């Protein structure tokens, strides 16, 4: 243990410590991109990076919501299931009930937010660990999915297809409208966390909930709000995923909660709460996306290497977090 403590004290340039995981992620990202460019000619095409955004827009939105929750020191395991539920509800209502797109959209977003709100209330008022409550939420959402239907439903609603197929062009390159939505979500989240009381209270609760209470901060409201935000972001992520896939499926987004958590952690947010940035989460999602892209470019490696590499990165970053945070006695 002494060696561990030594390293920690050497890292104890406190002002910098907060940013250390972020720098590490940036370096990692640069390294990955650099190695990609060096190995594959086609990699230098800017469209490669844009494709990472296109393929991971939904994950980005979900991970932003997760960032709020993790900043308070909590965790939300229900996000993947809520994403799937959203695709399923959207698809059923659009295809089988023939509802108009602009009624379905607010409805599914409301469902996600309500689920989050409910879980937040149980976590706060009944003082049950977040992971078990959101686990129940995950069962609930997946169960609802299966109750709606077990087979995949293709969406051919005109609005959905337009969102799926239109491209926002600049020069030779393009992105999908979903990317723009995701980036707007990121910007709003950055603003909320940095410039509103809700955002600052989120950090305060993660830093020290008891102090936050004694300082008179609205703990109940904030904690419930972050789970509501996470639920809303999951629903929005689900909408984006249904744009991307043009289908609703109970098996969509299985394990997405793990990807989202991994992105947040790799993005430098401490799992104990109180420290981290949304922009870090963006970097985290990019890392995950680039891993996939590199593996695709390589062609020899199989897709499961993604999971192994993500696991290894998680390990490295959690170890890093462990080194820079003082051990609580």
């Amino acid at each position: 243990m002494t060696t561990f403590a030594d390293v920690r004290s050497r890292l104890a340039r406190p002002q910098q410590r907060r940013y250390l995981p972020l720098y590490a992620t940036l370096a990692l990202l640069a390294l990955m991109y650099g190695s990609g460019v060096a190995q594959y000619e086609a990699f230098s095409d800017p469209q490669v990076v844009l494709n990472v955004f296109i393929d991971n827009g939904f994950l980005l939105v979900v991970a932003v919501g997760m960032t709020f929750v993790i900043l308070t020191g909590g965790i939300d395991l229900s996000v993947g299931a809520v994403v799937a539920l959203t695709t399923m509800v959207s698809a059923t209502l659009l295809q089988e009930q023939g509802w108009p797109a602009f009624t379905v959209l607010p409805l599914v977003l409301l469902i996600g937010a309500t689920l989050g709100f409910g879980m937040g209330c149980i976590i706060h008022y009944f003082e049950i660990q977040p992971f078990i409550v959101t686990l129940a939420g995950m069962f609930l959402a997946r169960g609802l999915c299966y109750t709606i239907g077990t087979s995949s439903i293709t969406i051919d609603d005109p609005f959905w297809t337009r969102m799926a197929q239109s491209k926002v062009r600049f020069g030779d390159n393009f992105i999908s409208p979903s990317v723009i939505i995701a980036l707007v979500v990121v910007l709003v989240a950055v603003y909320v966390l940095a410039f509103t009381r809700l955002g600052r209270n989120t950090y305060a609760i993660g830093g020290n909930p008891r102090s936050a209470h004694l300082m008179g901060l609205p703990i109940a409201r904030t904690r419930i709000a972050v789970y509501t935000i996470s639920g809303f972001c999951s629903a929005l992520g689900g909408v984006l995923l249904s744009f991307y896939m043009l289908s609703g499926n109970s098996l969509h987004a299985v394990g997405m909660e793990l990807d989202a958590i991994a992105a947040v952690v790799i993005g430098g947010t401490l799992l104990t709460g109180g420290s981290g940035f949304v922009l870090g989460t963006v970097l985290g999602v990019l890392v995950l996306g680039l891993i996939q892209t590199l593996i695709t470019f390589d062609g020899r490696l199989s897709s499961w290497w993604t999971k192994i590499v993500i696991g290894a990165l998680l390990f490295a970053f959690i170890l890093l977090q462990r080194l820079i945070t003082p051990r609580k006695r």
Partner: protein
Amino acid sequence: MNTLVKHRLFWPVTMLVVLLLSNLIFTPGFFKVEVRDGHLYGSLIDIVRFGAPLIMVALGMTLVIATGGIDLSVGSVVAICGALACWRISEQGDQNSVTGVLVAVALALGLALLLGAWNGLLVAVVGIQPIVATLILMVAGRGLAQLITDGQIITVNSSPYKLIGGGYLLTVPFAILVALAVTALAVLLTRRTALGMLIESVGGNAEASRLAGIHSRRITMMAYIVAGLCAGIAGLMISSNVSSADGNNAGLWYELDAILAVVIGGTSLAGGRFSIAGTVVGALLIQTLTTTIYTTGIPPETTLLFKALVVTIVCLVQSPAFRAKVFHGRRRPPSTPAGPATAATEKVEVPA
């Protein structure tokens, strides 16, 4: 009578019995157990047989939760071990070679031990929170399992291997025997040695345990290793029963079912006192729930909804805050303002 109601297994057992009885309405011959072709048959036997892997995983989980931890990686370990065993068997020329199967089983269980030790190392030595530490293997483990199976579903055709999960020994399904043996072993290991007490001590009060001279690191390590091993056995049972290994889906959400079984069995998520009998009852309850849903003709897809309901109810009942608010809410003197604010302030310690 009162002591009976207060016994901590009273509610889980009652729920189990009620659930079993309710099956009689839909399946008149539900309790019938018969011997056919020298094999035991019947719904009850099926419940135990299909519930055996869950019992295994939940047993290990019980010890981990008793130390105040949690192991999210058991589902992945299930997949990895099933994959390794099937891969090893499929690689050998004669799939029916008993030695070959034994080697495969030993390899798989050895790996399970190793994976458990890895979790234990992260939690007990490096000091990472258990949820986070085991999350790593939960994520990477699926990839490892697929790496072993090369992304395919490995099918084996080996009768000795089939025995573990799908075979019969002396008319009884072998899986049930294994589950019985491991449960008995777990009881022996924890209650005939001092391990159980030391685990409860570490989970109940870690600092007091340290001051009493307990090697809490060693005890915690051991709990995670046992959890890994149990998950490994479950992985063998599952893959053997279907004679194939699916790195992606084998053991999916097993960690959640296992946690649920432990919690239903009356072991608190906060750690401390644990009950192996309770966990077994909890696991059987979950399996009965699944079976009941199938036999009553409710769409099987709704199983998850019921589980969500059960998790919520059990956790609410276990939560002191919930009990205080719901059961004692009206007995409070009116001068005390209700709500979480007071509950939280009272916890603020101001040292003398």
